[in-house]
């Protein structure tokens, strides 16, 4: 599985949405992505990629694309 597929899978499972919905998805863009959903998303990303995100990166992760950008800093390539 590529990293993009892995990240898509995390979003799909965290929010219970279809894979095609992840593109362009933003914080509070769907009901499931509220602060509660955000924290479980962060936990799932940390598990999937075996990393620990900094506070700044957690609060900056405001879209699916932004998540990719942030993960690149942790040597997760897209």
């Amino acid at each position, binding site marked *: 599985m590529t990293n993009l597929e892995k990240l898509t899978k995390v979003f799909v499972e965290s929010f219970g949405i279809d894979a095609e919905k992840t593109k362009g998805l933003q914080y509070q863009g769907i009901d499931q992505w509220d602060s509660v959903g955000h*924290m479980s998303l962060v936990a799932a990303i940390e598990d999937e990629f075996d990393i620990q995100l900094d*506070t700044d990166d957690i*609060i900056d992760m405001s879209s699916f694309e932004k998540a990719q950008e942030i993960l690149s800093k942790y040597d997760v390539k897209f």
Partner: protein
Amino acid sequence: MFDLDRYQNNTAFITDKGERLSYGELSAEAGVFAKAVTKKGLVFCLCENRLGSLVGYVACMEHHIPIVLLDGSKDISVLQNLITIYQPEYIWISSDKTESIGGKTIYKFATFSLQKMSYEVEVAKPEINPELALCLTTSGSTGSPKFVRLSAVNVLANAESIAEYLEIDENERPITTLPSYYSYGVSVINSHLIKGATLLLTEGTVAQREFWSFLKEQKATSIAGVPYTYEMLKMLRFFRMDLPYLKTMTQAGGKLNKDIAKEYIEHAKEKGKRFFVMYGQTEATARMSYLPFEHALEKYASIGIAIPRGKFSLIDANGNTIEEPDVDGELVYIGPNVSLGYAECRADLAKGDENHGELHTGDVARRDSDGFYYITGRMKRFVKVWGNRCNLDATEQLVKTITTSCACVGVDDKITIFVTVQGFENEIIKMLSEKTGFNSKAFEVRVIDSIPVKSSGKIDYPAMQAMLN
């Protein structure tokens, strides 16, 4: 109510959009709002943590116009039922939603509009009890028509007690971390407005960059949170943040894990801050107890003592007062902040004081030999989900519309639905999330062979509760 003119030159509100309003300006604008309300009646406020929303709330409280605070972020359809039942004369709502709500715009301030409503067939509208100032919901954003009726005396008494034990003065700058229709959120607003403090208004959450930028830039001095807020802050490595101006943290809306509470108390002690564990219910306006910070470390599992001018007692199953320490009983509160009662329809707003200052909380508690109280259980079947009360029997009824063989049990922040038929899992979770307004993470569906029953034939909830572990 708030005696706004006392602090004329103080700043009442600063928003994350860069708006500012002084107490003098707030008082004047409240007067304009009240003038627009020419017909005696009821106002629904569709709350947001924005300037317009707050000005409307303050105007109604200042000018004795009964107001109901509701969640403004929800779909209008959730609201329609309440409008039908209560037929408010006016609705104070974000201007971009006026089309869907109807009525005629008669006044505007900031991003909010006051809609004057009319109804083809009017429900019975006996005169609203003149004592009634404020109605709040008890169960978050479910659209339940059950309101708690509060008088101006209730609201002011609770605000004064809170301001006293938190030592709130005009230099405080709390940032809104809670919705302003939620009793705890309203209590933060009230207890600061009576002291001339500055409220920092944002719709942002702790999960967002914008929230933290605003908090730092405006030097927020306090935050208020439900247990989940403090769990999130811990994940955000709050203990490593450099927030020199943030001096006070308060927690209510359910029981925070006692080890996490201890961590916050220790962190506060080390950094010269204060952390208050508190307890309350909407039925008592908001607050009933607090844990004095000087005793926080030795009593970190406790909800503390009754607030100033309030009094706790414990009663046994026969209604007798329990005098000895360390015995469980129902927690009873007496104080000037105990609500008038409930309303479930428009005519109920005419009702008088049904509680007479005494509230049976439905919580089971014990008192230690030093006089500190500890919540040990609940008499009714409900859990708190992110600070909001959620009735398990009502949840079960909702699930029955999908599959009749089901039973709900739960712990705070997690409701488990046991069903005996496979294939409905996603449908149930989606429906419950929509109906309750809670994130779908609040629900879990488990399929079992049969719902356990006791020999009496009643559903065996303790057996299912045991299956959760």
